[in-house]
């Protein structure tokens, strides 16, 4: 049976996480259709049609889906999904929001945040903050799955030429509405897709000191992240949090600055290829996962590092 991938997008552009979900779908095997639900979202639908390996793009272009509210997405996707064997979405805050509604409406369990496809019905997923990996088998008629982006390579964004089919969905559920949003704007790469990530923790002391990391990141072309401690302390906003309940990253290089290395933080970054830790406490647990550890005062080491690059 075919597989339906729910695209993550901003109406005028496709979010990169969708490409990883397409790779997971191709690993399951079968025709891969992509749903783009939004408002004035033809640009996103056209991008989806170019993804290598995509069979067909379904485009639900209606004001109802402008902000992809979970109540409306749940109705649309559970309705469409009945004729598919699998429904996949990225394990972003978008996918995590509406996919369990889809599963409940279809009366099936959901498999969250898969990192591996073993067969069309068997998947691996981390549990207990990544301290254990469960291999699970699903007997559901429709398998509702969210995909952790770091577990799968991105499918090529170009090379496909799928047809775009316009569809209509159910009417607005009428129980929720969008009020507003405050989205961070940054010229730096997106955290979950960046090649290099520089993260700061409680050791940064305050928000102003994060300037040190921004300067370093700009020299490296890196994204900037933070530990929960730094976000809770109000140094930086929540969208920068890396960890079990924040963003999961796996860049080529992760530089942890002033981060002690709580289990919950390690869960979000320990699959990085190379980890560097800079911390003045040589007993900090972060050193147990770091390839290169530097025991030093970050306020001296970070500017020095920036200068030497």
């Amino acid at each position: 049976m075919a597989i339906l991938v729910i695209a993550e997008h901003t109406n005028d552009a496709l979010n990169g996480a969708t490409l990883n979900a397409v790779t997971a779908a191709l690993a399951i095997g079968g025709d891969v259709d992509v749903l783009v639900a939004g408002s004035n979202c033809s640009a996103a639908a056209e991008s989806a049609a170019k993804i290598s390996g995509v069979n067909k793009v379904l485009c639900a272009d209606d004001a109802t889906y402008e902000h992809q509210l979970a109540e409306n997405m749940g109705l649309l996707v559970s309705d469409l999904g009945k004729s598919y064997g699998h429904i996949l979405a990225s394990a972003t805050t978008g996918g995590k929001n509406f996919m369990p509604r889809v599963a409940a409406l279809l009366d099936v369990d959901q498999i969250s945040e898969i990192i591996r496809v073993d067969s069309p019905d068997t998947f691996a997923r981390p549990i207990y903050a990544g301290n254990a990996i469960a291999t699970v088998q699903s007997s559901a008629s429709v398998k509702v799955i969210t995909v952790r982006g770091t577990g799968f390579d991105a499918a090529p964004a170009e090379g496909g030429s799928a047809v775009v089919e316009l569809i209509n969905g159910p009417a607005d559920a009428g129980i929720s509405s969008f009020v507003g949003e405050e989205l961070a704007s940054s010229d730096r790469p997106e955290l979950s897709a960046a090649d290099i990530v520089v993260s700061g923790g409680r050791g940064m002391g305050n928000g102003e000191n994060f300037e040190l990391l921004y300067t370093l990141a700009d020299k490296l072309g890196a994204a900037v992240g933070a530990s929960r401690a730094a976000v809770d302390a109000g140094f930086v906003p929540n969208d920068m949090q890396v960890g079990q309940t924040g963003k999961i990253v796996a860049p080529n290089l992760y530089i942890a600055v002033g981060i002690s290395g709580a289990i919950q933080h390690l869960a979000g970054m320990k699959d990085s290829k190379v980890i560097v830790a800079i911390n003045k406490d040589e007993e900090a647990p972060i050193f147990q996962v770091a390839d290169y550890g530097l025991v030093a005062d970050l306020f001296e080491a970070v500017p020095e590092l920036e200068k030497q690059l």
Partner: protein
Amino acid sequence: MKVLVAVKRVIDYNVKVRVKADNTDVDLTNVKMAMNPFDEIAIEEAVRLKESGVATEVVVVSIGGKESQEQIRTALALGADRGILVETGEKLGSLSVAKLLKAVVDEEKPDLVILGKQSIDNDNNQTGQMLAALASMPQGTFASEVKVADGQVAVTREVDGGLQTVSLKLPAVVTTDLRLNEPRYASLPNIMKAKRKPLDTKTPEELGVTLGSTITTLKVEPPAERQAGIKVASVEELVDKLKNEAKVI
């Protein structure tokens, strides 16, 4: 306004879990258990709604074995008014839990249901959304601010790009994120008082819910261990290693 809060008994967040030698599950023998941290935030929010005069009653529900009474008593000590234990020895998936909670919602008819956004054992992040779908309620997940007024609740949500605010018609489901509030500690007098607060026990059969799952766990394994690397003596050495050994810059 009545608020229902769901809490779960899970491994204490400070404990590093180990996988059993036979790879069937993680080993929870003699491990410290506690209330799921996100659920503490849910209780705190409900109690604050009561203290500010918005809520009139806070009911706490937990699903699990007899020992889950401990977490209900903790919630009662933090300010909830009464508790309900749906007692079952079975290990349940999120959908079954959502169905049981839906049955409790049908009986209790709360205006607002608050849950943690995920439990730190299975990390599923599903139950609140599933409950909302089953009860045909709107949902405000990953909440960092909750404001109730005029039959609506405005929920500010922590999303990947920043913050999003939605307005939901009551009754509604809210799931908590870390920044919603800082939970209080229970005082000794309140812990004593909590022992006398009502705690009902129900069974899944009484609630008319058939349990089951379409998911079978085949095995549970430890993740690939990361080996600790080396300590470098200076920034200069670090830059040299990154350039010439790791070749990542």
